[in-house]
């Protein structure tokens, strides 16, 4: 009776429902509230807490429902002279670019044949970055079609910023590909559970490629247009940038896509640099540490790994929010300077240094 669960596409649908709809979308939605709550904590305020059902306020949790309902029943306006077709399809691009990343993110180690990953495609990150670059279209079409000067300016800024930082994103990952020898996310994560000095220090990306980690995280912040890189949306100068003219549910679509992008940023950083779902020293058959071995059942291991993945993702979500309320916004020329004049040379240098170190390391381990 349960045999239909073994059909690949049924599994894929189930994984999409559980991982993407129930985890990613939920976390993205909760982040909208978490951000405001944390902002008020930073600014010594209480934050949103007024939405209520009778006497139940739930520390502002009901604002999630209130915000959603409110934007459904807000008027949906399209400005005069706008290109209605492009105006309509822009939010679609925003969604596609942030959701497809989740195809390759593993949530826990495999149990038997079952993978906690929607699709372990062999072109892996190359394919994923190809799709996520579509996010630029969401910004440029939304801004261009609005017939508004602020939106056009926001779109121009968003495009050049996202395009520029895509280069550094790609370049910073080359070191990771060199170390782990694969584009496939599953392989990269597995490789991060090998250890230096017997079984002391895990070969996490953050230890093998510390420079790449800093550059990748910064470039991801710029890709998702988070502060300090939010010149395309700077609300005090160009109001909301490229989605200025959007209202109601279409505006909510852009906002939700942006918060899902933050979860995606956190998950990608976790997967590539913090060992993905791995708990240090935890292997498929239990803990191995300094010669000792604590056997655990595969399901317990999977639960621990799932917990570790979710914890790391939430940590990075928190970090992006904390950065937003710590660092002031860069000017646009500073953003471009930081990218092309600082990060690009550092990226290229990182590749050369990684190559030399790897050559020496492989040569010394081969020699003996």
């Amino acid at each position, binding site marked *: 009776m349960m045999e239909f669960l073994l059909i690949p596409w049924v599994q894929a649908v189930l994984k999409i429902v559980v991982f*993407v709809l129930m985890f990613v979308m939920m976390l993205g939605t909760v982040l909208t509230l978490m951000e405001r709550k944390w902002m008020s904590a930073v600014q010594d305020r209480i934050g949103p807490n007024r939405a209520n059902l009778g006497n139940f306020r739930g520390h502002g949790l009901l604002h999630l429902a209130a915000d959603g309902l409110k934007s459904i029943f807000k008027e*949906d*306006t399209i*400005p005069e002279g706008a290109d209605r077709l492009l105006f309509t399809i822009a939010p679609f691009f925003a969604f*596609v670019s942030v959701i*497809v990343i989740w195809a390759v993110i593993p949530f826990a180690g495999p149990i038997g044949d079952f993978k906690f990953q929607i699709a372990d495609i062999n072109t892996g990150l190359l*394919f994923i970055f190809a799709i996520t670059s579509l996010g630029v279209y969401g910004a440029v079409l939304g801004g261009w079609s609005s017939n*508004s000067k602020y*939106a056009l300016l926001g779109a121009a800024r968003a495009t050049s910023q996202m395009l520029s930082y895509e280069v550094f994103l790609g370049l910073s990952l080359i070191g990771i590909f060199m170390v782990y020898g694969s584009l496939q996310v599953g392989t990269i994560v597995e490789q991060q559970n090998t250890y230096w000095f017997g079984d002391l220090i895990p070969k996490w990306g953050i230890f093998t490629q510390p420079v790449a980690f800093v550059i990748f995280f910064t470039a991801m912040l710029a890709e998702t247009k988070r502060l300090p890189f939010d010149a395309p949306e700077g609300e005090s100068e160009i109001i909301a940038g490229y989605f200025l003219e959007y209202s109601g549910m279409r505006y909510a679509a852009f906002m939700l896509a942006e918060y899902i992008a933050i979860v995606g940023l956190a998950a990608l950083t976790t997967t590539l640099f913090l060992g993905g779902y791995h708990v240090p020293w935890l292997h498929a058959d239990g803990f191995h540490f300094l010669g000792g071995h604590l056997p655990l059942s595969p399901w317990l291991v999977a639960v621990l790994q799932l917990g570790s993945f979710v914890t790391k993702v939430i940590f990075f979500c928190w970090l992006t929010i904390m950065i937003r309320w710590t660092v002031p916004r860069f000017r646009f020329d500073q953003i471009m300077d930081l990218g092309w004049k600082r990060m690009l040379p550092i990226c290229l240098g990182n590749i050369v240094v990684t190559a030399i170190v*790897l050559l020496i390391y492989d040569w010394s381990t081969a020699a003996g």
Partner: protein
Amino acid sequence: MIAEQYLPVLMLIGLALGLGGMFTLLAIMLGPKRPTDVKRMPFESGMPTEGSGFRRYHVRFYLVAMIFLIFDVEVIFLYPWAVQFRNLGLFGFGELMVFLAVLVLGLVYAWKKGALEWE
């Protein structure tokens, strides 16, 4: 075999498009529709809109797009090399040096020409 691998990715794209469609439909069907001339004006900080929003913008953005094209294609060329690096050894390292030298030359040229300057 390959197609099967990509099926879930297609499903995800479908999900994303469906979400976009759902949000757009909700906006069109449930939102009130009471347009007035003032409401339909593109926002310009409360002042009456002047001229069209489709206007020229600075040529710098075009320059960024050109530099992006050059460097992003280079990145793609480096990917297969990076994956195979540990099997290629010293030969691969030499090739990288030549490739990067050309790339850096391009960067230096663009830098000196002022293509990276803002203001």
